[in-house]
């Protein structure tokens, strides 16, 4: 083992050593603050009775929305048979898996009583019909099921490890799992579709007492957002990984196909978002006795809304016409602004929702995560990156490359 670590250390380039040192430090910080938060409670965060949720929920929303790209990509590959997406699918499944795993981690930290987390399954709040009354009940069940599906989808990648695949039985299992993967993709699409809506949008949309959140369209908007932003995210992660490791893991045309899908969905998202805003301004906010723009103040003003829309337009302009998309730099800028647009929209949902005053005589409140919150947030992201790197190094994440090597 020591020999292995020694060899690994000697084989690693200088840049990689620095990156690993930073990531490992963040993981250690994560561990320290995890003990503090789990042992002594949420008092060490900047959340309070007014700002009930903070950095970790933003992490959750972002991860689920971007991890949603896994279901969109899987859907296009396995159901629509867009075979050009094949080189990217293992990486996509892994990213989806990591996003969901760390959504669980963040949710667990956010619970005041993490030991009672199983109550969500034991005492679920089902409504009168088949659909749950509480969006969080839906999140509990859908998230767990979809996580299991991603786990199953990930298994072939692990089984195809060059040592394991020599075993005939394992090879056969991996082969047939690949053939049957479309069932998983279909199930995953169905489940992810629901909780995209619930965690990203429905969760806020049903809060009818809060004019700043209530919107009957929020649920559907979040689904479209996840499909648009998620596909861009699935492009950017392997792209950055390829740049860092100085290897072309995924052919450019695969990226082109996926960004084209993303760009098209962004048009739909943009139109839907404008409609949602129009309805909120003219109809739903006045209905609750509020002016829409009065609720957008304090530190997080209308600028967040404007930023989101501008980034959306950038994504649409750069990802749709072929002349821009076919140029690498425009494709990267377009996909990045798409991702940032979705993250900004999630940020502004949370920040505005909690900072807007509930009483006419109160002012806007603000929230600044404490060191414990930052530590856990960045530590979690660092752990995700580390796991992804481990897979890139030791598992067949990009199967077409292995084939080329064999040839």
């Amino acid at each position: 083992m020591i020999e292995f670590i020694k060899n690994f250390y000697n084989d690693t380039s200088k840049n990689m050593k620095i990156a690993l040192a930073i990531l490992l430090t963040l993981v250690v910080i994560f561990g320290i603050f995890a003990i503090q938060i789990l042992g002594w409670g949420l008092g060490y965060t900047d959340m309070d009775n007014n700002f009930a949720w903070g950095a970790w929920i933003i992490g959750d929303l972002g991860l689920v929305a971007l991890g949603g790209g896994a279901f969109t990509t899987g859907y296009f590959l396995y159901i629509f048979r867009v075979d050009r997406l094949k080189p990217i699918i293992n990486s996509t499944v892994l990213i989806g898996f990591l996003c969901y795993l760390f959504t669980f981690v963040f949710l667990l930290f956010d619970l005041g009583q993490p030991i009672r987390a199983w109550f969500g399954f034991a005492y679920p709040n089902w409504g009168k019909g088949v659909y749950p009354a509480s969006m969080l009940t839906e999140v509990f069940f859908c998230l767990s099921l979809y996580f299991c599906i991603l786990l199953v989808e990930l298994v072939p990648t692990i089984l195809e490890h060059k040592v394991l695949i020599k075993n005939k039985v394992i090879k056969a299992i991996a082969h047939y799992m690949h053939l049957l993967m479309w069932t998983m993709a279909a199930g995953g699409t169905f489940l992810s579709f629901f909780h995209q809506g619930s965690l990203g949008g429905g969760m806020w949309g049903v809060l009818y007492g809060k004019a700043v959140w209530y919107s009957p369209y929020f649920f559907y908007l979040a689904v479209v957002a996840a499909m648009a932003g998620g596909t861009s995210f699935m492009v950017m992660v392997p792209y950055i990984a390829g740049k860092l490791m100085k290897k072309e893991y995924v052919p450019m045309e695969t990226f082109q196909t996926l960004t084209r899908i993303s760009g098209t969905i962004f048009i739909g998202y943009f139109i839907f978002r404008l409609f949602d805003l129009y309805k909120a301004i003219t109809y739903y906010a006045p209905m609750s006795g509020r002016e829409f723009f009065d609720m957008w103040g304090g530190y997080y003003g209308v600028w967040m809304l404007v930023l989101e829309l501008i980034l959306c337009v950038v994504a649409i302009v750069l990802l749709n016409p072929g002349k821009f998309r076919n140029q690498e730099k425009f494709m990267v800028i377009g996909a990045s602004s798409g991702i940032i647009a979705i993250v900004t929209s999630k940020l502004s949902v949370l920040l505005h929702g909690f900072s807007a005053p509930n009483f006419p005589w109160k002012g806007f409140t603000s929230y600044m995560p404490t060191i414990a919150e930052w530590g856990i947030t960045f530590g979690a992201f660092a752990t995700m990156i580390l796991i992804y790197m481990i897979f890139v190094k030791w598992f067949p994440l990009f199967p077409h490359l292995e084939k080329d090597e064999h040839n």
Partner: protein
Amino acid sequence: MTVKDVAMKRRWGMAIDLDKCTGCGQCAIACSQENNMPIFEDDSDVPKRVAFLELMKVTNDRDAKFPDVRAAFIPKMCQMCEGNDPKNPDPPCVSVCPVVATDVGDDGVVSQIWSRCIGCRYCQAACPYEARVFNWWKPKYEGNFKNSLNSDVSVASRGTIVKCTFCSHRWKQARDESVANGNLDINAPVYKTACQEACPVGAIVFGDLDDPKSEVAKLVASDKALRLTNSIDDLPEDKRKAFLKIKQFPNPKVYYLTSQKWLRDMMRFEKNS
């Protein structure tokens, strides 16, 4: 008479006369003592403080000078929202709970089981009145306060949401007492909340909103009564009914009484924008 024959007729509500309230804070203290609120060495961290009843001071204009200055105190506890239909109450905080730790009873009281709560704070996000509080720290009772804890109210653990329940443990006591005296009618006993009992000027009136003879029912029917930020009350009847068909509104069961125009305006968003 058997207990089965008796249907719940109570719909508990409250009327608070802001013109009488002096802001002495007796209600807040009585509430905290009754409901085992933790006491920390430094309770100046207001946003993280655990208290069911918050005494909010409002003024007409921060820059106003004597004699134009107006100030009032608004005791704010859980407003016991009932949604659009009193027969089928749907408070904003109840449907969102993933573990059914909070529920609304047939008496209209929104209750919470501390020991069932997983601390996700979804109800806190849903509450338009900031009435739900979270135990950010482990509850502590300095000195010999532990000896004076109320055995009828459970002490919450760290990381759970707690809220005002209109002192429903007192109602249970009243019912037990009534049954012990041979009266099985669930609608017979009445009770007083801790804040109502403590108010030296009688500004807080608690009772059954559905009983036309009760004092609270008479008070909420008066012109002085209005509900906090519930702007749908100001609309003409036809428009109000149309709105109620489109979406749920909180429609709380706590009413505030005042004849001061500035204070009435203060409780509405559209008059302060």
